[in-house]
């Protein structure tokens, strides 16, 4: 990080290679558009590089929470804009995702339904799941990012999973005719 801040191109490339896919995945999961996710990812790193070069990075040793804070601020702006144009998904479309075959893992249809199911959760729940899985952040990092006690964050993640499971199970038990 110190090297990247001082203009070391190799260090900056390493940061890009390591974090760009995670920021991209997080953005894509939130805005549901690969092109917009790429633009968000690019703008995030433009911001980051500018702050590094300008000596504005003061959170030594806490790069990931800082990076994802910048990313989530951009994602939130875009997600709100996208949401205004979103269409609700019928619960029937989730059918089949609640009981994936553990031997083979979830199938394509199940993954699609799961992705749709996530969009039916509250924004707060979606955010936690995406930070955890697409962003690959630890619970401690997410708790820090959201400024919540770790225990509270763990409980919220647990509840988000439970809601998602319930949503998918109800859909499976009540398939469309």
């Amino acid at each position, binding site marked *: 990080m110190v090297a990247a801040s001082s203009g070391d191109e190799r260090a900056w490339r390493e940061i890009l290679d390591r974090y*760009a896919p995670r920021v991209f995945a997080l953005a894509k999961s939130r805005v549901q558009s690969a092109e917009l996710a790429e633009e968000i990812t690019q703008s995030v790193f433009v911001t980051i590089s500018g702050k590094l070069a300008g000596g504005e990075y003061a959170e030594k040793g806490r790069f990931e929470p800082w990076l994802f804070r910048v990313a989530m601020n951009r994602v939130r702006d875009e997600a709100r804009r996208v949401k205004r144009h979103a269409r609700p998904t019928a619960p029937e479309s989730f059918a089949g995702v609640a009981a994936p075959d553990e031997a083979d893992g979830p199938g394509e249809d199940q*993954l699609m339904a799961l992705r749709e199911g996530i969009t039916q959760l509250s924004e707060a729940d979606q955010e936690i799941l995406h930070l955890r899985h697409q962003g690959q952040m630890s*619970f401690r990092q997410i708790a820090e990012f959201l400024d919540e006690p770790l225990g509270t964050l763990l409980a919220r993640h647990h509840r988000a999973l439970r809601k998602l499971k319930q949503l998918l199970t109800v859909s499976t038990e009540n398939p469309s005719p």
Partner: protein
Amino acid sequence: MTMNQNDQNIQNPQSDGGEREHAELVLGLAQLAERDRADTPENLSDRIFVRTQANLGHAADAPPAVFVLRSRSWMRIAAAVLIVGAGVAVVMSLPNGQPSIPEVVESTGTELASAEFNFEFVSGVWDDSLDGEIDLLMAESTMLDGELDREWEEFDFLHDEGAL
């Protein structure tokens, strides 16, 4: 992938955020996330690198690179060709009309498509509204008129010398 090193320190099985209880769901979430990361566009890091270096003016020592940038508008594809070198970003004006991206490249010099310059095609068609996108890129660059002229002179020289 569900537990990283920090979380493995959490010993209480009730305090794992429900990931053990909903293991099958977590498996699906992990696969979705892996798929999203795998969908990262090819050369995204390279494009970010060029853009950020151009912004910071660190590109003086970088070899010339030619890219077709994506539009800032998520519904359209940009048709701006960016040459990075000598610390400045040069956006080439492209003809109006409706040529496809390859046609645009054809009209501005197919030699630029040389693989050694990391050229990347982005599918799409020319749109007059992209004039605005190019203006935006121009505004974002640190380019001055004099530097632009110098860059073009250098480009022409390299082109004439067969370096491009």
